[in-house]
């Protein structure tokens, strides 16, 4: 989706503002928001791409005017609502009215450390040979999917060079096919593709700048 989350190369946001004495959390609710988002992810009722898709699908004005943990909470409300895990009435009252839906698992205190240390690897056994090789020129396809994708707009239609081949990784665009488990974990070859600054930003711009994205094979086409 060509959403406002796809920010690479946008202008007008001003300078980057480092904080002199930054704290990990800036409001008391932020740590709870982070933890509840992580813990609810562990329930297995959605995957990382469905979570990203929920965040990207917030109304653009809401997305742009929310802090990042606020985006997480708004998306978490949507994710739980869409699956019937909570109801709008329960959310507004903060009280349980309907019985819970079954979930794949619940992250308990004594499993937190192991779960975080394990993570959720996305590397899969490849079922076909890689189409592209290191050093090869490729073009990011000029595609505009309605749904979730991880191909940023600023590289679409531009030519770059394959710098790394990472093996086959779960393909985000189809990882969101089903909203409940079992998810579609189809994998595609993943490449780091490097673009020269002027190719992305025009002649005279971006000199001495190289930018790479990690792009799945369906995002790319061969350059003859």
């Amino acid at each position, binding site marked *: 989706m060509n959403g406002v989350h796809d*920010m690479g*190369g946008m*202008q007008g*946001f*001003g*300078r*980057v*503002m*480092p*904080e002199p004495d930054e704290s*990990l959390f800036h409001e008391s*609710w932020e740590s*709870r*928001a*982070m*933890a*509840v988002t992580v*813990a*609810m992810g562990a329930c297995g009722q959605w995957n*990382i791409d469905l979570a*990203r898709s929920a*965040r990207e699908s917030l109304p653009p004005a809401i997305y742009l005017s929310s802090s*990042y943990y606020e985006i997480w*909470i708004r998306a978490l409300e949507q994710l*739980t609502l869409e699956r019937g895990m909570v109801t709008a009435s*329960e*959310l507004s*009252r*903060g009280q*349980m009215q309907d019985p*819970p839906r079954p979930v794949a698992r*619940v*992250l*308990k*205190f004594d*499993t*937190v*450390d192991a*779960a*975080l240390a*394990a993570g*959720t*690897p*996305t*590397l899969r056994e490849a079922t076909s040979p890689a189409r592209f090789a290191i050093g090869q020129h490729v073009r990011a396809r000029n595609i505009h999917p309605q749904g979730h994708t991880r*191909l*940023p707009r*600023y590289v679409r239609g531009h030519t770059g060079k394959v710098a790394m081949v990472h093996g086959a*990784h779960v393909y*985000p665009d189809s990882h969101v096919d089903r909203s409940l488990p079992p998810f579609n974990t189809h994998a595609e070859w993943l490449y*780091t593709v*490097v673009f020269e600054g002027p190719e*992305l930003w025009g002649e005279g711009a971006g000199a*001495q*700048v*190289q*930018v*790479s994205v*990690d*792009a799945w094979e369906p995002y790319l086409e061969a350059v003859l």
Partner: protein
Amino acid sequence: MSDHHHHTHGPDEPSHLSEMDVRVRALETLLTRKGYVDPAALDRIIEIYETEVGPHNGARVVAKAWSDAAFHDWLLQDATAAIASLGYSGRQGEHMVAVANTPEVHNMVVCTLCSCYPWPILGLPPVWYKSAAYRAKAVMDPRGVLADFGVTLPEQSTFRVWDSTAEVRYLVLPMRPPGTEHLNEEQLALRVTRNSMIGTGLALTELA
């Protein structure tokens, strides 16, 4: 939910709960009552990222790479395994790649699409990393971003920006500051700033 912040509070309660405070508390309470989350697990998650997992992990990785040539090469060849050998692995660091700064090339890491960040070695991302300004500007004007952090590199430097659009997470291996030849790993780690491992800063030539 807009009416929540008009609650009145007793004398022992905070005088003001923000709308988000109320919203997150209500959500956590509801999800706990439903049995989806264990509040003790939430406490533990917070404790881990507040006290155990943070940039000091990454600093240890960098300091070891500066001091140990074999580890340096392993880190650049297979960062996931090299970093795991120091005990750092997992969520948001499942597939690691380390990229080394040189006198000619300065690396910078961004996630233009969301906030992807190598949690096991850097902890939770700072606000600026998730900000629209950084996500928009890093891929177009990395030199300008560095200037926003008060850092200037020689004119001839090439900027190499890594947009983390997949589940690969990047660690910048900053250049070892001059005059640190006599320092051991522990001392070297103190020279490694969080920003130097993202590419919005440099390792410290001297301790503040």
